[in-house]
């Protein structure tokens, strides 16, 4: 199975009339990789997936699968399986018939279809539901049925369009883990669209962050979390999101509200910057930035404090120990390596 499912996007542009949904998108996906397309709604991630599937045609640019230019190839000739957000199960067919449909279209002999359908159903644990109609299944079971229909055919590529968004929180977590195991055991290349950064972080081997029709950053989730290359990516990845505040950079120190913080940056001279510090990287420490506790959000194992730091809102995540009361004035600090610096004009990382 490895060696199949390599994808290359070359400068893909998609126009909807005057509006450009994709402004020249390029990336590569390696065989066997779990690749996430992450971004807020309207950022172009779904359009990218639809172009890959062949459901939409790009305005310009080329798409390759396994080295072959498939930009003009029909969706049904691309050998791609897809799980839709709505599942798109055929309501008039039983679960068995739904799963068998792609094999039937491929004109496989009935005996082979039967073996494959039962095998796929077993992999997603719905073998006891084969006689039911989709309408008689719960949301989670429908989702599994859609998965089975996608994996039954050993397709070159496996596309998933927000497949977990219709499940409740608990089921979403369980299915997430199973999805990852399934992808690994099958060894297929998976392309996964989501607006949920946590989903992308946990599932993906690598991911592309989309904003306003462009890719902001491609890389391993940990890499992107550690080194977001723009203000927008920094604000999007991580929960609660990164604190971003305007500051002055002077000889490698940033000055926020009159207080100096050391950074890892070695630079002479002065300039305006945007400072980014993750709520989890902030610590309560003496001699730091003074801030007032406005609100305490208790998440159980951790607490998130909403702070007012000389008129700028900030957040800090702390453990159970040493939680100051609301209204208290505390002093906060961060290690130099945890301070991200961005250019306010270009919005890129410094």
């Amino acid at each position, binding site marked *: 199975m490895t060696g199949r499912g390599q994808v290359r996007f070359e400068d893909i542009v998609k126009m909807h009339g005057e509006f450009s949904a994709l402004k020249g998108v390029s990336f590569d996906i390696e065989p066997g990789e779990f690749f996430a397309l992450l971004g807020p709604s309207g950022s172009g991630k779904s359009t990218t997936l639809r172009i890959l599937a062949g459901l939409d045609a790009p305005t310009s640019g080329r798409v390759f699968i396994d080295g072959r230019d498939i930009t003009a190839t029909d*969706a049904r000739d691309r050998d791609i399986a897809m799980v839709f957000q709505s599942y798109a199960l055929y309501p008039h067919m039983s679960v068995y018939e739904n799963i068998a449909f792609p094999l039937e279209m491929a004109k496989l002999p009935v005996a082979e279809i039967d073996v494959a359908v039962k095998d796929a159903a077993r992999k997603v644990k719905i073998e006891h539901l084969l006689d039911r109609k989709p*309408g008689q299944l719960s949301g989670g079971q429908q989702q599994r049925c859609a998965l089975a229909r996608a994996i039954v055919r050993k397709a070159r590529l496996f596309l998933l369009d927000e497949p977990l968004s219709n499940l409740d929180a608990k089921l979403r977590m369980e299915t997430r883990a199973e999805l990852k195991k399934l992808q690994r055991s099958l060894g297929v290349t998976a392309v996964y669209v989501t607006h949920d950064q946590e989903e992308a972080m946990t599932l993906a081997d690598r991911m592309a962050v989309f904003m306003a029709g462009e890719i902001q950053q491609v890389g391993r989730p940990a890499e992107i979390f550690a080194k977001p290359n723009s203000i927008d990516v920094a604000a999007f990845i991580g929960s609660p999101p990164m604190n971003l505040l305007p500051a002055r950079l002077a000889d490698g120190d940033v000055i926020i509200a009159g207080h100096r913080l050391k950074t890892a940056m070695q630079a002479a001279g002065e300039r305006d910057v945007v400072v980014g510090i993750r709520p989890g990287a902030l610590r309560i420490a003496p001699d730091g930035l003074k801030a007032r506790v406005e609100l305490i959000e208790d998440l159980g194992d951790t607490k998130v404090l909403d702070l007012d730091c000389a008129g700028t809102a900030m957040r800090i995540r702390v453990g159970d120990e040493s939680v100051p009361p609301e209204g208290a004035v505390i002093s906060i600090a961060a290690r130099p390596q945890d301070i991200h610096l961005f250019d306010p004009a270009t919005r890129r990382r410094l």
Partner: protein
Amino acid sequence: MTAKRFRFVATMIITLIFLLAWVFPIVWSVLNSLKTDQDVLAYPPKLIFQPTLEAYRDVLFGSGSILPNLISSFVISIGTTVITMLMAVPAAYALARLRFRGKKFAGFYVLATQMLPPVGIIIPYFLILRNIGWIDTYQGIILIYLSFSLPFAIWLLVSYFEDIPFEMEEAAYLDGASRMRTLWRIIIPQVRGGIAVTIVFVFLNAWNEFLFAVVLSGNTVRPVTVAMFNFVSVEQTLWAKLAAVSVLAMLPVVILGIIAQKNIVKGLTVGAVKGGGRR
């Protein structure tokens, strides 16, 4: 009396009034069809009488039998329905799904034909059919019936096709199905309720049609709606026979209605219920 109870009683009374207004002519026809001509004209009307099937025997097997007319009606209605559906299903699908030049115009044209008053176009239709020699022929009447049943059927079916999510079709394409296969295996089974409703309406419209039939038919092809009028003449109206023919003409309509009832209700509520994986 509680408000709830009052509402119930009021609803029942209003329903009853409507039901009576609707059911009275039918009951009256059925009763008259079972009377002799003398009993029909008796005054005050006889509610208790000796029922007889004489009128039915006469209209079915007598000298002026309407059997050929019933057959004509069937041929015309079934022919119209079959041809209409064969053309309307793909047309409605195309209007609901495909993008093509003049789609808006085509959609409007389909509706516009429904707005023409029939009386206004009956003479042009008559002249056209006469010129091509199709007056008093099945093909002539069916052709004219198509001119209004087809737009109606397309218009009705489009909404059913539009109810099917795009993703359903896209899933089928990715599963390797062609457009025709998708239409046949995925789309049509899901709009079968709508198709059943449309079949019933098209058949009924053709079966009940009178205005065009009276002008465009003749001695060879004369549907039962027109033939009925043989029992009405200047000298006298044969009420019992007229009633018997009415009842016979109503029968297929009633039977079809009963068979299709379940589908009609289902068809009218399609999309209202959030079914498995739809939307």
